[in-house]
């Protein structure tokens, strides 16, 4: 394992499987009456959120608290950042207060990479979503959900996703979830197909380890999981598609389309869902939709990542090499 988690592309197959297996152990904690492990007692983790994201922050916070870490939440709004403080100064200020790890969500692609590689701070850096670049813990929790559903909770241990066919549908261009998933699913041996209108597929996608299709209906019968990405309504103002209705008709998942999926196939969504846009209520509320499970699994995955990156009970002093 590396010292930071910046991109899903940085994980080897063995790293990823180890995280998924560890997350299964962590999930058992959630089944106990007292959902807490002493692992990170005395460690301080800051959740440094420059972008609003209640669900991701709460998920990390729950994971940190279940591992008994001391948690500091920092949101940019109303802080020194809104008065013009730089990322570097903010991070250094927090580190001076004795932070062992920084969980960062930032609107600028590459901000976590800069934080980890510019010599600004010594703390471990975990990317909780940067711009339109990466969201590695999201990809991990998605893979975890797929492995559980498609292989099985116990049968899945030690396994990757070899041969599984995953379709990711929606605003790939602006999606860090799509990028992270393509990287991680490829590493885990799955076959990924991206489906989107051509306007929402980035130029340069040809180098990605996946297939691209503009037609949802023809890909549905051949997949084990379909992941619907959120599509912001504002996108149509920039001519990415003509109208909300046309988008829904061509790329939205409704009951009829869901019926074209193989019986075992699941429907995933990273949330927040825009019901009526990329997904209908009928699909979102069906048994095949794992959106809620994904949230629960997110806590287990983030516990596993924090546990593995912060080295369990090892002392906090052994982290000076990169500066």
């Amino acid at each position, binding site marked *: 394992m590396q010292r930071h988690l910046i991109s899903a592309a940085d994980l080897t197959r063995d790293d990823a499987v180890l995280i998924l297996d560890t997350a299964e152990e962590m999930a058992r904690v959630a089944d106990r009456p007292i959902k807490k492990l002493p692992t990170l007692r005395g460690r301080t983790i800051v959740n440094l959120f420059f972008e609003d994201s209640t669900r991701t922050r709460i998920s990390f916070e729950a994971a940190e608290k279940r591992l008994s870490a001391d948690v500091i939440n920092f949101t940019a709004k109303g802080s020194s950042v809104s008065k013009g403080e*730089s*990322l*570097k100064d903010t991070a250094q200020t927090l580190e001076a207060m004795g932070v062992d790890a920084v969980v960062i969500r*930032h*609107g*600028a*692609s*590459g*901000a976590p*990479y*800069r934080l980890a*590689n*510019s010599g600004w701070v010594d703390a471990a850096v975990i990317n909780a979503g*940067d*711009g*339109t*670049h*990466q969201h590695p813990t999201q990809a991990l929790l998605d893979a975890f959900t797929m492995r559980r559903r498609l292989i099985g909770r116990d049968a899945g241990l030690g396994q990757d996703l070899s041969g599984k066919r995953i379709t990711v549908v929606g605003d790939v261009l602006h999606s*860090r979830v799509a*990028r992270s998933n393509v990287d991680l699913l490829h590493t885990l041996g799955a076959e990924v197909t991206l489906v989107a209108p051509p306007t929402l597929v*980035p*130029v*340069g*996608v*040809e*180098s*990605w380890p996946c297939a691209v299709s503009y037609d949802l209906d023809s890909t549905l019968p051949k997949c084990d999981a379909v992941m619907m990405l959120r599509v912001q309504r504002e996108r149509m103002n920039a001519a990415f598609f003509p109208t909300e209705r046309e988008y829904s008709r061509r790329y939205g998942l409704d009951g009829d389309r869901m019926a074209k999926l193989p019986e075992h196939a699941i429907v995933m969504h990273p949330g927040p869902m825009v019901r009526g846009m990329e997904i209908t209520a009928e699909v979102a509320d069906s048994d095949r939709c794992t959106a809620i499970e994904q949230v629960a699994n997110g806590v287990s995955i983030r516990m596993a990542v924090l546990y593995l990156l912060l080295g369990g009970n090892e002392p906090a002093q052994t982290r000076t090499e990169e500066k």
Partner: protein
Amino acid sequence: MSKILIRGAKVLGGEPQDVLIDGETIAEVGTDLGAEGAEVVEAAGKVLLPGLVDLHTHLREPGREDSETVLTGTRAAASGGYTAVFAMANTFPVADTAGVVEQVYRLGREHGYCDVQPIGAVTVGLEGRKLAELGAMHESAAGVTVFSDDGKCVDDAVIMRRALEYVKAFGGVVAQHAQEPRLTEGAQMNEGVVSAELGLGGWPAVAEESVIARDVLLAEHVGSRVHICHLSTAGSVEIVRWAKSRGIQVTAEVTPHHLLLTDELVRTYNPVYKVNPPLRTERDVLALREALADGTIDIVATDHAPHPHEDKDCEWAAAAMGMVGLETALSVVQETMVDTGLLDWAGVADRMSVKPARIGQAAGHGRPVSAGEPANLTLVDTEYRGRVDPAGFASRSRNTPYEGRELPGRVTHTWLRGKATLVDGKLT
């Protein structure tokens, strides 16, 4: 002024010769010239070039003296072998009136390190809506002949057409920063394989090429000449090549960084590589080198763009665009063009002195190294190799993409009208 004898220099890379400077002019060029009464500069093995001319420099004064001033910028220029620089108009206030261009011109003359020829804005405030008083700037003491809204594109086709037509009255030229604004909203880097992976907003080649195509057609239509700033793509090269073959009066420049660096460097998210136009692909780099060699691209211009440290020591999206270049330009050209066999030193003199002086009508610059000419000269130790150390820069800013990189060549002496501005690598 005293006499200076430059002994045994390879003039334009040719056979060793002596060059005698008397006062402000070159008195004699030959072999075994007498040294009586002259200070002797031993130049055996070194290459003597006409003083370099940069058609594209940002000196930042007035307004951003925290990143560069006319003094620090011209010291950087002298250090890099330049005897004349054209100062871009995007200062605060914008150089869109006779008053501002005269101030910048006067500061350059007073400091005496390098002639500063101001470029006037094409439109008021660089806003692209209303022509600035181009005639007044031309008739001012600064004698402006090059006009540019650099940093912004003159994207309105009618304004561009009028500007091209209007400057014909006094032989001016419009230098276009070719960037279609709608296609580059939120653009952070070259659009392609790397931007797709990094999730950074793409700056597509077509945003540059479409404007160049339009402008060469406009120049043809109104019978004017147009200069293309910092051309960066293989497609732009093809369009300029086509335009020249049609007899359209177009000239084009390429920056040193676009001759050497590619968008792969952006993978570091280090904003020192953030520049406009962005670093492109290997294929573009090779096409630009070839075009500079065959004359499709006329000149090398630095687009020296100083920025304070804090504007680069941040996340990519928040960082300023631009790189300093005056003090490394000749080394990068040696690395990419001379050491690769694409250009000889006479070719370097042509692309970095003769042609830029001609495009910008910089009197007394870009002249032959021969008797009677102004003594604007640059002496280069072409055998030198060393790592770039920004701490040694004369520029006030340090935002170089070459820190720690080994590059060939070092300017040891620069003379501006017979006065040494750089001696043994040290500014006077």
